[in-house]
């Protein structure tokens, strides 16, 4: 009997700590892109009923570790954690994306400084608060970035770019660390 072995996107690449900043691979569970049908009100109700999560507005994330919903695009959110409830299918296109994204957590006192070298987004805490999310660039890569804590960020890029993500983070982390 043959058996297929699973491998995570960042296998062999992480964890990595340089200076005060650490990056680890994040296991977010099942990732599902949900594209609501119509005005999305029924979807929001269904999401609330099924998973207890609010439907995030643009630039926002709802939920907590293990059960999160990230705004992801025009008319698309990403459910991270639970297996999507069947009831959602009546109100949204439901697409499994569990293996499509390399997910990492960047944390530490210098995390914002590291991001400032790669991402053209204002991460000041008064502007980009916990629960805020952005679809933006990490250097040249399309990414999703969510603040999950004061110094903690969740970063998603295409699975195929996991190596480049780690490389870019490493370069930026070294530059930040070199400033002491």
């Amino acid at each position, binding site marked *: 009997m043959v058996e*297929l*072995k699973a491998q995570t996107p960042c296998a062999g690449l992480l964890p990595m700590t340089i200076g005060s900043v650490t990056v680890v691979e994040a296991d977010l569970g099942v990732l599902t892109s949900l594209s609501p049908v119509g005005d999305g009100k029924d979807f929001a109700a269904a999401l609330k009923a099924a998973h207890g999560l609010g439907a995030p507005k643009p630039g926002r994330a709802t939920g907590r570790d293990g059960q999160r919903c990230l705004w992801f695009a025009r008319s698309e959110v990403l459910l991270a954690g639970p297996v999507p409830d069947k009831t959602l299918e009546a109100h*949204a296109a439901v697409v499994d994306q569990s*293996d499509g994204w390399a997910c990492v957590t960047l944390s530490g006192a210098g995390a914002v400084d590291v991001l400032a070298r*790669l991402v053209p987004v204002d991460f000041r805490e008064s502007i980009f608060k916990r629960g805020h999310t952005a679809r933006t660039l990490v250097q*040249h890569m399309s990414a999703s970035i969510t603040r999950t804590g004061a110094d903690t960020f969740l970063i998603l890029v295409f699975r*195929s770019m996991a190596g480049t993500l780690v490389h870019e983070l490493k370069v930026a982390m070294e530059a930040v660390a070199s400033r002491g």
Partner: protein
Amino acid sequence: MRVAGKGIIDRSAPVTFRFDGASYQGYAGDTVASALLANNVRLMGRSFKYHRPRGVLTAGSEEPNALITTGTGAGAEPNVRATVQEIFDGLVTTSQNAWPSLEFDVMAVNDLAAPFLGAGFYYKTFMWPKRFWEAIYEPVIRNAAGLGALSGQTNPDTYEKAFAFCDVLVIGAGPAGLMAAWAAAEAGADVILADEDAIMGGRLLAETHEIDGRPASVWAAGMVDRLAEMENVRLMTRTTITGAYDGGMFGALERVNQHRAPSADSAPLECFWRIHAKASVLAAGALERPVAFQNNDRPGVMMASAVRAYLNRWGVSPGQRVTVFGNNDDAHRTARDLHAAGVHVAALIDSRYDAEVGDVDYPVYRGAQVCNASGRKELEAITIRSASGEQAIQTDCLAVSGGWNPSVHLTCHMNGRPAWHADLQAFVPTPGAIPGMIAAGACNGSFSTQACLEAGVSAAREALDALGKTVADVPLPEAEDAPYRLTPLWAVAGKGRAWLDFQNDVSVKDIKQAAVENFRSVEHMKRYTTQGMATDQGKNSNVAALAVLADATGRGIPETGTTTFRPPYSPVAIAAMGAGAQGKGFAPERLTTSHARSLAMGAPMIEAGLWYRPSYFPKAGETTWRQSCDREVGYVRQKVGVCDVSTLGKIDIQGRDAAKLLDFAYTNTFSTLKVGRVRYGLMLREDGHVMDDGTCARLGETQYLMTTTTAAAGLVMRHLEWITQALHPEWEVSFTSVTEHWAQFAVAGPEARTLLNGLLDAPIDNDSWPFMACGAVGVAGVPGRLFRISFSGEHAYEVAVPARYGASLFDLLVQKAEGLGGGAYGMEALNVLRIEKGFITHAEIDGRVTAFDIGMQRMVSDKKDCIGKTMSERPGLMDPDRPQLVGLKPAGAVKQLTAGAHLYDAGAEAARANMQGYVTSVGFSPEHDSMLALGFVARGPDRMGEVIRMVDAVRGIEAEVEICSPVFVDPEGGRVRG
């Protein structure tokens, strides 16, 4: 020489550095310029054109003369201003533009030829013969004229770039900037205070002023300490704001490690910042301007404010017998400070008859002008001219002041023009030239310290007002408030060359010559004379040059206007702007799940978009790629081959109107496709040309899976977005890329089903899984998908599993294929297989061809509309004379075919007008033991069997080729259905 008791350098921290091979000592806080002056080194460079000896002129980033190269080897950096470069132990610097040495420069012969080398000389002299320009004149001129040179090697240094955001950006940390930053910060705004200097304080560091009864530099240090403690303030020293751009964006260059030996390999030398500010306060100060007179470029002739700066900040007197020459009261300070510090002041010369000097202990000449300087590598004497005639004064340093020019540069970066201020005889910023920017202090024409302090606060108030924040009253310190009195003096009349632009060797005569030759516009004058070009961008000379031009053309200065100030304010290394894009940072690498295994198998990679795909998988004993490729083609034709096709775009399309979207995007119909079946589809651009092709599977009643070519995946997504957002927003359809979620492998060849049945949870046969069937399967217990499609013409499948299992499945497939006498195949074999079968790629559909051209016009359904359909029916787009897709095979002695070669009728000259078509793809077919090609030939389908000429003018290859069907293998298509 050092002056005891003066300066804010750290005399307890000696620093040793090198200049032109010699070792010198300075102190922590010294620049190269101040340390060299302290060591009585005054010759620091040679001029651009005439190689005249030059010394340091200024004490800031505007320096035109003292340009040096720092470091050695690959990372050596040219054109560094000695006035900006801080010294550190181990710093190596060298002079530039001199050979064999700075002291003895043979190119100084240019100076003797100066009468022939004036403005416009090149344009007039080197016009004939024309072909000599590139071959002889330009290289010779470039060799003789120039600044420092790059090493020519790859730069090993690290640079970085970064983003910053704030409410208020304060540019410059002199009295106005410090007060503006403090007032804004007290009001709760997020403030970035940036200053190009290593220490904040601006002019306060260089003067003997007092603020609130304390030395101004001490007051400034106190303010900096206070700001540093505030959480909402970010202090950026050694950071030059280089440009002001749209939407509140600013460019800034930070010298991160230029002032010390790097601590680690990864420590960046410089950081290029992009700063976004809701509002900004420009407190950039002002630059003192020289007065032009004969030989005013002799080393030892310096700006009066610079002499004060060297004395008061660095404890250095640039001379032992200093003379001061000015047309304004500010110049008097230099004489006063020098005298008070015990330096001999040989004379104070003021061009104004009515200058108020007071009771001083040194000779004062009112109504006199310096009309010449003597000495070559070092100033020895000056000649002054007054009503009583000319007289010489022995001096080794002349401090000159022609007044001050506000640093308006940034306010002009969005094409604003500064306004002429007659009282100041200078340009000041035009309010609103940069949205949200308030100019304050000396850069706005407020020259007293008290006025600067006040202007800083009011600028902060104005800036924050616009942001809805209120600045409370902050206590204003007390400082000097001397009036700025000046009578304009741009150039002293007389013979000889009086220099305006030191860096480009432009004299008063050159400007006048430009006017005589009718280059009267200031922009024309600039280009004719080169005034204001190169690294200093004429910061010292622009206003004086246009004043001379105004005089020569009989216009006023405001009518003459200024040239355009553009970013960057001061030079920025390209390496800094391109930071992060070196090496692996150039572009993301997209790696498939089989990447590591492919590398382990020795496969060279080729790039497809950002993806890396294996070219071929060499085996022991194979010496050329062709051997590997032929073997891999054989796997698919005879046994079974495995290929990673995960890179193809995969788009999940769902919704009530999914079929409508597909019918509209594709030329052919997908609404009629049965669930569980796949169909090949063709997409046109709006202009009727082919955009992309691929297969599309119907997974459910309202769910499809579209595949695209690897390179066009993003393009097709964008196309679908455009259709659904702009053309049919009423459709209920959503789509999302699942390219990354699935690892997908082609399993192709007669043994494909045998292989798959060894790992599918439920075996398949031809009835349950016929050609073009698709559906869900279990792959070794993992839910996957299976598509019976073929890009080789063989019995073939594509099997997909979630990407986490990709690496494992590839291992398994290769192992099973090898067990059946097959194995992995790469892009080379894939290409040969599809050429043999006449399948197209973007080599054929290169954006210029129509469905008609590739023989697929019948795929453009006449039962429905689709994107590009109407436009594809334009006259000419279905003209039989258009080149159309055909196969080509060698028909003469030359057996080599090349992609990119052009086709001509037999016997016709290989000229553009005779072109019949071109070759798009070639490959060696093991089955035909011959090279085969796809290409486009005018009326090609009607010319089967005709032999024509293939000419590859680039590679020098010519062959006779026969036009044939593009399908070389299994034209009946029996194999795919087997």
